[in-house]
């Protein structure tokens, strides 16, 4: 009985942990970044032609978005998208996708 209790306790703890991990936080970064998923895939993991952006370094993503916005990096639609974000918002988006596995 006692052994079963311990096992059950660990199972409960594992389930709790899983739930906490599964729930994504509603942060400013998430509010800005979730809309990127329509083209770049959920969490930035693209299944098709559009580049994935998950797990890239925040420095790289931030630099790319700044360069798109300033027209320094060749683009089709990204220059137009980047024009809609402030420096601070670009940092939040870069941090968000760099932390996606």
């Amino acid at each position: 009985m006692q052994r079963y209790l311990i096992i059950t306790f660990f199972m409960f703890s594992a389930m709790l942990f899983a739930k906490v991990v599964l729930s994504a936080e509603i942060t400013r970064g998430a509010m800005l970044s979730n809309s990127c998923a329509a083209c770049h895939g959920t969490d930035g993991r693209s299944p098709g032609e559009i580049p994935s952006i998950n797990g890239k370094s925040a420095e790289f993503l931030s630099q790319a978005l700044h360069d798109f916005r300033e027209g320094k990096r060749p683009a089709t639609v990204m220059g137009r998208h980047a024009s809609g974000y402030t420096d601070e918002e670009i940092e939040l988006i870069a941090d968000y996708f760099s932390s996606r596995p």
Partner: protein
Amino acid sequence: MNRFDRRKFLKLLGISAAPVSVAGFLSSCSKGTSARVVIVGGGFGGATCAKYLLRFDSSLQITLVEPSEKYMTCPFSNMVIGDMQTLGSISHDYSAQKERGVQVIHAKVQAVDAMVRMVALDNGKVIHYDRLVLSPGIDFRWEAVEGMNAPDAEIIPHAWRAGRQSTILREQLKSMDDGGVVIVAPPENPYRCPPGPYERVSLIAHYLKQHKPKSKVLVLDAKDKFSKQALFQQGWDELYPGMVEWVSGSKGGRIDEVDVATRTLYTESGDKHKADVVNLIPPQKSGEVAVTSGFSNEDGWCPVDQRTFESEMHKDVYVIGDASIAGKMPKSGFAANSQGKVCAAAIVSSLRGVEMPDPSYVNTCYSLLSPEYGISVAAVYRYDKDRGIYKTGGGVSPVVADDAYRLQEARYARGWYDSITMDAFG
């Protein structure tokens, strides 16, 4: 451990043996609320909202009510009409939603009673909710089309909801003789997918150029200007010279009356156009349930708080997608996807009693002028108490661009489709 022991064990933890309570105990520990959210409509808005609600709070009990077992997307349905893709390639089922724990009910909603928080289905079931999301898409204002009713769409298809209607139009094009005339008649604003009719004109012309090159496409428009107009007209001249003629609303494009049997359109200007194939896209309003249950205004669209998409008519009911009035955002699958995520965040925040961070919305509409020629319009939106949803950036594809640029946008159009359908239905 026998049943008795298990009960004793659970009692020890201070909870009952009922599995529901175990779930409740677990979720309360992980800040879950276990609230019941019912979503009506499984398109881009509803499907996305269901997925993101569970991402934000995995304890929620989500029910998605959608009549169809397979959802066929309007995006890329013009490729089906142009006989370049099958209906299967634009069909998505709800297996991923079911796997993540969404209860999917294939039924039609008969009525919503927001006072008692209840949704009545046509299968006799009644569902109770704590929060309701309506994402019913569009319906047609047949009363605004003289001489035509809903059943006439078998003869003059609108093909503005993908599926059987798309194949009716495709088959009519395929059985038309070379040298025939196809009329596409886009409606007045606002309507679902502003550049959609013009992509359709392009892909019909693409089909005709290959199979029936003496044929013509006549566009009788209710409007005097349209989305990405300069780009479309430039593309038509370049790709389909002499095949496409566009008539603006004030110069004879507005249709007064339809004679269904002879496929003849009478315009306000007194002209008469008889065609071999007619694609009349009727004026629109919110999907039926939003109108009949009292969530729309006198124009047939649903006013919402554009920060959260909560209905202005009833507390705890949210309206997203084409049916909603969303400030500067167009009625598009992309917009519905973007709104579905904000709405999910708003619902979870309200259930937790916390303030949601400011929303950010995006829309991009890709249009194909041929399978290798794409154009786009993109915008980023924010919300302001006085201005509602307004644009902070964006723009359209350049008028001057080389073939490689158009090809790249056509590829990105497909890439976008793969991503957004995975984001919503995957």
